[in-house]
């Protein structure tokens, strides 16, 4: 049975179901329950927050502080501990409160979670999930608005997942928890309240399988997480003028479903990649380069990338709005493609 659930609640449900099913699953992070240190003398404190967005709220009463572990503000400590616990048999799901803070634990991900299996010759796995929150549009300024997808995607050994809908969030998180390798699970703060039909029972969406959000024959638009929705908006606008865009949500960036993207480009002959990240060495360039090599002979026009700026995310609302790609910019990029004469 499906019901309407938002992304936040879908994630909460995935965690709840997997924790109920598998005792090895534990959560760690800062204020993921909340009120730690007050349980005895002031019980109302418990479960005060469930993280800053309330995503994990309600899990503490169900699973207790043994499994919903509020840590100190020490990301290297608890990410590293998750790695060790995973090697020793647990399935830790840790929360880096904002992806922007990744620098404080990056070594544990880059050199340990990602590499230990390889350097040890394939004898060990590191089944951790790092849940983290990304994205602009929350008026949260430069140090709480980044995406940084590409930093993880660059690193072999990590898997990178970024759902755009509640149904995908649930199914991909369940896969992430069951996955034997380290998964960076990126939640977009501006998508938490977005509703979708979500099945009640647990289900797993495989990694490396893109979702074709909308079919079209004229141009392929690949959207990166929240930009999937912006791409659909643009597609709706374009459709009014008889231009039918195919919108693809890769859903997982590592592994990437190259095949679905390439097939689409082979069909449409045109590619626009939309990524709110900074432009350089980004997912936008990654997907563009993929097509420039493997789908070159199908291309009928330049590959366009619609991205954030090569600048930190500004606080000021009109600046931030200008920073984030919108439907108009996507439409313009598509038009730019179509206007250029085909070769």
């Amino acid at each position, binding site marked *: 049975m499906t019901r309407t659930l938002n992304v936040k609640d879908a994630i909460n449900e995935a965690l709840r179901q997997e924790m109920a099913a598998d005792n090895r699953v534990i959560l760690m992070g800062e204020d993921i329950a909340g009120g730690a240190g007050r349980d005895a003398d002031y019980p109302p404190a418990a479960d005060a927050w469930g993280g800053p967005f309330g995503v994990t709220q309600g899990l503490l009463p169900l699973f207790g502080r043994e499994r919903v572990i509020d840590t100190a503000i020490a990301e290297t400590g608890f990410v590293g501990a998750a790695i060790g616990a995973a090697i020793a048999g647990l399935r830790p799901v840790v929360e880096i409160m904002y992806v922007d803070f990744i620098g404080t634990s990056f070594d544990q991900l880059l050199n340990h979670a990602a590499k230990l299996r390889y350097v040890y010759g394939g004898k060990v796995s590191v089944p951790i999930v790092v849940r983290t929150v990304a994205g602009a549009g929350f008026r949260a300024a430069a140090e709480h608005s980044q995406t940084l997808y590409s930093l993880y995607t660059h690193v072999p050994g990590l898997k990178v997942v970024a759902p755009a809908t509640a149904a995908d969030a649930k199914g991909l998180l369940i896969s992430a928890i069951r996955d034997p390798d380290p998964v960076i699970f990126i939640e977009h703060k501006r998508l938490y309240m977005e509703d979708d039909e979500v099945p009640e029972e647990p289900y797993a969406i495989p990694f490396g399988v893109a979702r074709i959000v909308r079919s079209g024959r004229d141009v392929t638009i690949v959207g990166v997480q929240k930009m999937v929705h912006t791409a659909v908006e643009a597609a709706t606008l374009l459709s009014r003028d008889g231009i039918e865009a195919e919108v693809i949500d890769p859903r997982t960036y590592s592994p990437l479903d190259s095949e679905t993207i390439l097939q689409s480009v082979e069909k449409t002959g045109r590619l626009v990649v939309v990524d709110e990240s900074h432009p350089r060495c980004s997912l936008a360039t990654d997907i563009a380069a993929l097509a420039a090599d493997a789908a070159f002979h199908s291309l009928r026009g330049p590959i366009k990338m619609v991205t954030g700026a090569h600048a930190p995310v500004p*606080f000021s609302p009109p600046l931030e709005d200008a920073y984030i790609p919108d439907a108009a910019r996507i439409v313009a990029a598509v038009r730019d493609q179509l206007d250029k004469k085909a070769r």
Partner: protein
Amino acid sequence: MIRSLDNDTLLGLWERMARIRAFETRVGEIAAAKEVAGYLHTYSGQEAVACGVIPLLRDDDWFTSTYRNHGHAIARDIPLDEIAGEIYGKVTGVCGGKGGSMHVADQSRGMIGGMGIVAGGLPIATGAALASKYLGRDSVAVAFFGDGAVHQGAWHEALEFASLFQCPVVFVCENNLYAETTAVDYHLLAGSVSAMTGPYQIPSVQIDGMDVFAVRAATAAAFERARTGNGPSLIEAMTYRYGGQYEGDTQTYKPPTEVAYWRGQDPLLRFRSDTATRLGMATLDAIEQSVQVEVDAAFTAAEAAPWPDISEVTTDVYTPIA
């Protein structure tokens, strides 16, 4: 301490504390009214710390702050218009609206700036102090941080660096009992931050952070040490955050008795009772009224101020090369 201060100094402290309180009260109101978007971290309750430390800074000194920086900026006499403008993201903001509430900064006044990463400012203040020492100056640097910051690697590495190179830096912990929703009782294994500096051989003191005079006295001693080449020190000021982690936080984790206790320690109340006979209640009241007028004007101006031009998105990423 009080006796050694002249009336002007006392009134200056009062004015700044009152200004912070009035400003932050207004921030709470505009947040509740959703007049401004984004995260707003207010400083009410902690006024004695900023006002005990910052007025002792010289023009050539430096300090780093956190996302909870309005009080530090105000104590450093950054015009309210510029702070309010920044909170609104207007062109009048002290950072032109690019940084917002979490990143108020004015290096021309020695405020390196507000930083969003817990403990991120400590190594930076330490480096500013290193520069002072290297250049043969007697200026100091201060790093403000919270009780939650002490477990970060950056905290540890900064203290180590500061001590190894005997940098003239003063680490000021505003221990307001909470890091977000997490009580110090939970994570502060040593019982206090001041008890954590042994490994670094950094002298430390825990003080009453609701008493501006206690903070000032400890700061004066720490600055003296730093300016005379005797290296870093740490001050742990016990204080309380009246607001939530940010505006909108429901604060269900705070026991009412605790709140009541700390409200009783209110730094403005304490200042009044310490100085009322000498300065006169009427004088203090008049200052409260005048800073309220300033605050009203600052927020009215901020609201009315223009947005930055959209071309600003991509400026200030790099320094123009002449």
